[in-house]
């Protein structure tokens, strides 16, 4: 029996050790797994390395996790935010370490982690400060940089709909990094709006196959299951 449903965000999250590497999906607030981050704040694990495109906006989610002092290091492409000072204050106080990675390199390093590719060469950032100290090598007369895969202990992501197996559909640009992070973490936890029975998602439309997912939890009013034959996708 394959049934990855969890009853609530805390049990979905499970154990997270101090010092763990946690990937957090979302681009800005689109696709941000706020309720799972809340569970991580409650759970209290510290000294975390967070891998995420941004470093929090507003006062909830990743901004709150940073404010709670649980994040020692962040790997991201764009930690600036017009509506949150949480990261900036910690950063300027030297209380959080930043690894700044070009957005496409970040995506590709996470994908590589999930795909068993330990490292790859890319032209992005060659000759810039962000490539300082990295191995350079020319391919077809193009200067490239060696980049290593990123893996995580846990990925926290948000999707639109899951089935019991963890097959996922996303909503519009809320998809962003989540399918990649699902692949790259030892344990992938997903918050969704609704959970369907296996067989109710069209196999052609599944974005993240269940093999990459460990636990799913429905948030909010729609915790009831979608019934048989009611759903084949995000906008049928």
């Amino acid at each position, binding site marked *: *029996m394959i049934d990855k449903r969890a009853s609530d965000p805390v049990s979905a999250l499970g154990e997270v050790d101090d010092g763990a590497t946690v990937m957090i999906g979302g681009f800005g607030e689109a696709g941000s797994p706020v309720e799972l981050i809340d569970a991580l704040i409650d759970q209290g694990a510290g000294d975390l390395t967070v891998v995420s495109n941004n470093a929090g906006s507003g006062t909830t989610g990743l901004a709150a996790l940073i404010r709670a002092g649980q994040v020692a290091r962040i790997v991201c492409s764009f930690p600036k935010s017009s509506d949150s000072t949480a990261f900036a204050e910690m950063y300027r106080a030297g209380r959080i370490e930043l690894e700044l990675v070009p957005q496409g390199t970040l995506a590709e390093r996470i994908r590589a982690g999930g*795909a068993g590719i330990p490292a790859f060469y890319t032209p992005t950032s060659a000759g810039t400060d962000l490539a300082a100290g990295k191995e350079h090598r020319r391919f077809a007369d193009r200067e490239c940089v060696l980049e290593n895969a990123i893996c995580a202990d846990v990925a926290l992501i948000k999707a639109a709909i899951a*089935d019991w197996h963890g097959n996922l559909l996303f909503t519009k640009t809320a998809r962003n990094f989540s399918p990649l992070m699902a*692949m790259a973490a030892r344990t992938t936890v997903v918050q969704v709006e609704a959970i369907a029975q*296996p067989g109710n998602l069209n196999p052609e439309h599944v974005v993240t*196959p*269940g*093999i990459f997912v460990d636990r799913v939890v429905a948030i909010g009013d729609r915790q009831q299951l979608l019934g048989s034959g009611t759903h084949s996708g995000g906008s049928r």
Partner: protein
Amino acid sequence: MTRPRVPGLSRREIAERVALDIPDGAYVNLGIGMPEMVAQCIPPDREVMLHTENGLLGMGPPPLEGQGDPDLINAGKRQVTIMPGASFFHQADSFAMIRGGHLDVCVLGAMQVAASGDLANWSTGQPDEVPGVGGAMDLVSGAKTVLVMTSHCTHSGEPKLVAECRYPLTGRAVVSRVYTDLAVIDVGSDGFRIRQLAPGVSLCDVAERTSAPVVDARSDSCTD
């Protein structure tokens, strides 16, 4: 090298024995040929998701006569069906599952297996042979557990379990366990470790048909 045949397990019985070792909820790739038979032998109280590397997770049994779809095939290019919870994806995603360590188990056939876990199953190395490797090298380097299901000896009676593979390797130190008509055998640095014998088969029968040292490793836990 040919020796008298010993009464061993049928192919179906080997497949049943392999299936016993596949846990509930596992994601599994079954190699082309004999390993495909494992699909029919999964105990009914276990749900196992079958992966086929040409781009499907949740593979079901062959279609009923006349109901096949030429666009729905497995890695052996035979028509299959899908199970609830299935998904389709392209080859890079399919091999991301394999290479990325997401498959729990892969069951492959073998031409030769060495006690070190080296596997040869893709080429005889003959110069006139048309070679073909498919996904075998990806599977052995990526799946969490690589099981081999094979006849203990070749048709002509040559041992397939050897001290060192003579055929070109598929991967080095990749096999965990071998299931043959004669025994269930773990690989190890001290030789092949016999975990279980088929009914009517002796340790001596196995040792005689194996061209590397065998170690008796049977215990209460051997039928795990």
